[in-house]
């Protein structure tokens, strides 16, 4: 663990990323404490520019709502969507990939055709259709994001499992009489963790972007203040109130950036072989 941290912290970008993400997480957690009122509350006159009133340092939006409160609550939604949809995608992708890779043969064939099928449909278009069909809500958004983002997980896991499966320690486990389920859970999957974690960190980033894109198209959950919603809503007033899309835009950018940096750092730290390259 200490070793891991040492390798991780050698990557300066990764540390910066972690710091940014930590700030976002703290903001998300503290949002209800700092802004006890709902972010939807109309607190001042509309289109109050930033730094105009001390109380509302980032200004107000078209309905006079506090942009700062929106950003804080938006962090909650973005992180929630990012994390939950990634976990969901992992829950779909890992078993499929593991089964395909471990059992091979027709199971592999069938599962991979199934995966391929999902990769053939343009993913953003599919996400749009899914959300529109099940009507925009936090659940349908998370489900849609998970559904379009699991195939890479399945492929990754399958690839890893395929190579692990013929490792000698797996064969040893087979010989020692362990059952397939135990072998997958105990011998195989734990050794795929590193690449999965790296991929997952990037998926969280992608999911946040996806949610914001959906929101931008008007397919967000109307009861959730998310960053994408804020930009989408600000689009029509971008000319008179640049700050309405600017701040959430920067928030998304930073969060996604942070997750990417973290992903790279994890990659370096978890795959020492690769870490030697680069810097």
């Amino acid at each position, binding site marked *: 663990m200490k070793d891991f941290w040492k390798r991780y912290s050698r990557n300066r970008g990764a540390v910066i990323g972690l710091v940014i993400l930590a700030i976002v997480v703290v903001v998300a957690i503290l949002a209800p404490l700092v802004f006890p009122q709902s972010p939807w509350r109309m607190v001042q006159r509309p289109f109050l520019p930033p730094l105009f009133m001390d109380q509302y340092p980032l200004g107000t939006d078209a309905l006079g709502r506090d942009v700062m409160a929106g950003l804080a609550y938006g962090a909650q939604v973005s992180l929630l969507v990012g994390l939950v949809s990634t976990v969901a995608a992992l829950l779909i992708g890992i078993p499929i990939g593991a089964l395909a890779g471990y059992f091979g043969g027709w199971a592999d064939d069938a599962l991979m*055709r199934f995966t*391929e*099928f999902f*990769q*053939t*449909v*343009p*993913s*953003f*278009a599919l996400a*749009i*259709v*899914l959300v*529109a*069909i*099940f*009507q925009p809500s936090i659940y349908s958004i998370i489900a849609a994001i998970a559904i379009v983002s699991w195939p890479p997980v399945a492929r990754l896991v399958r690839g890893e499992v395929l190579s692990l499966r013929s490792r000698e320690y797996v064969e040893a486990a087979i010989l020692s009489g362990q059952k397939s389920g135990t072998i997958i859970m105990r011998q195989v999957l734990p050794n795929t963790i590193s690449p999965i974690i790296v991929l997952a960190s990037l998926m969280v*980033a992608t999911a946040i*972007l996806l949610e*914001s*894109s959906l929101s*931008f*198209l008007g397919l967000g959950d109307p009861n959730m203040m998310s960053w*994408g919603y804020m*930009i989408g809503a600000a*689009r029509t007033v*971008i*000319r008179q109130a640049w700050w309405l*899309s600017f701040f959430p*835009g920067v928030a*998304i*950018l*930073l969060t*996604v*950036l942070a997750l*990417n*940096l973290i992903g790279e750092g994890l990659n370096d730290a978890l795959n020492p072989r*690769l870490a030697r*390259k*680069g*810097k």
Partner: protein
Amino acid sequence: MLRFILMRLGKAVIILIAILILNFFLIHAAPGDPAAVMAGEAGAADEKFIADLREQFGLDKPLLTQLGIYLGGVLQLDLGFSYRQQMPVADLIFDRLPATLILTLTAFVIALTLGTIAGVLASARVGKWSDTFISTLALLFYATPLYWAALMAVLVFSVYLNWLPGFGYETVGADHEGFARLLDIAKHLILPATTLGLFFMAVYMRMTRASMLEVSQLDFVKTARAKGLKPGIIQRRHIFRNAMLPVVTLAGLQAGQLVGGAVLTETVFAWPGIGRLMFEALAQRDYNVLLGVFFVSAAMVLLFNLITDILYRFVDPRIRVG
């Protein structure tokens, strides 16, 4: 080779039909139907009006019958009739497809060339400030929401600077002919293609950089150095070609996805492509159009995958000969 292509086509047909069936059920699961939408927009409508529409569209038949009719048509290469636009779906799509292809292919080419060039440059200067700069830029491109970048681009280049048109495919009514028209389209293309390309540029840059670094660790590179080859030649002939293999794979996957993935760009830039067509058809429950767009874009994905595979065979002798 021919056999390979035929096999792949056969597989593609099966996938396409599966996609159509899935989507068919998916979109019929959505609340509302095209008749309801059209009635809603008609300014006044009663049950007779809606019932007439449903009958006209064949929506009064059982779902499976509708599916059968639809698939029957598709097998004869008939994508059906748009309820709303009252014209054959195929016409509608093929009217729009060129615009999408021009946009996405331009974006793709920009992304791929600039991305790989940047990746190669960065990998050659690994650890130096220019590498840090390129990598950071790529990360920024990667992390910027596409639509946001698009909004900002329109704001700056079209509104404030007035250098480039901010929307549309060509200057409507300008009646340009020949070269002038191409120039006009090219001008309209710059903003949407660049913003759409940014993200992918970042992806290719990072991939190329990583791949170059990985390949440069391989044994044959050491062999090449031991021959006394100049670094430039090693980079080009040995590292680059090998490093491009994974990039080509990724590019193939994405080129196809681009076709259906340009919804946002087409919306912000009012680009008359099939992404927008899809989005509108979805809101209007214009089932056949939606299915048609999915059909065509999935077909594109498969086509690009096939092209990549053929290309791959061309680049990689292990696959070509073995």
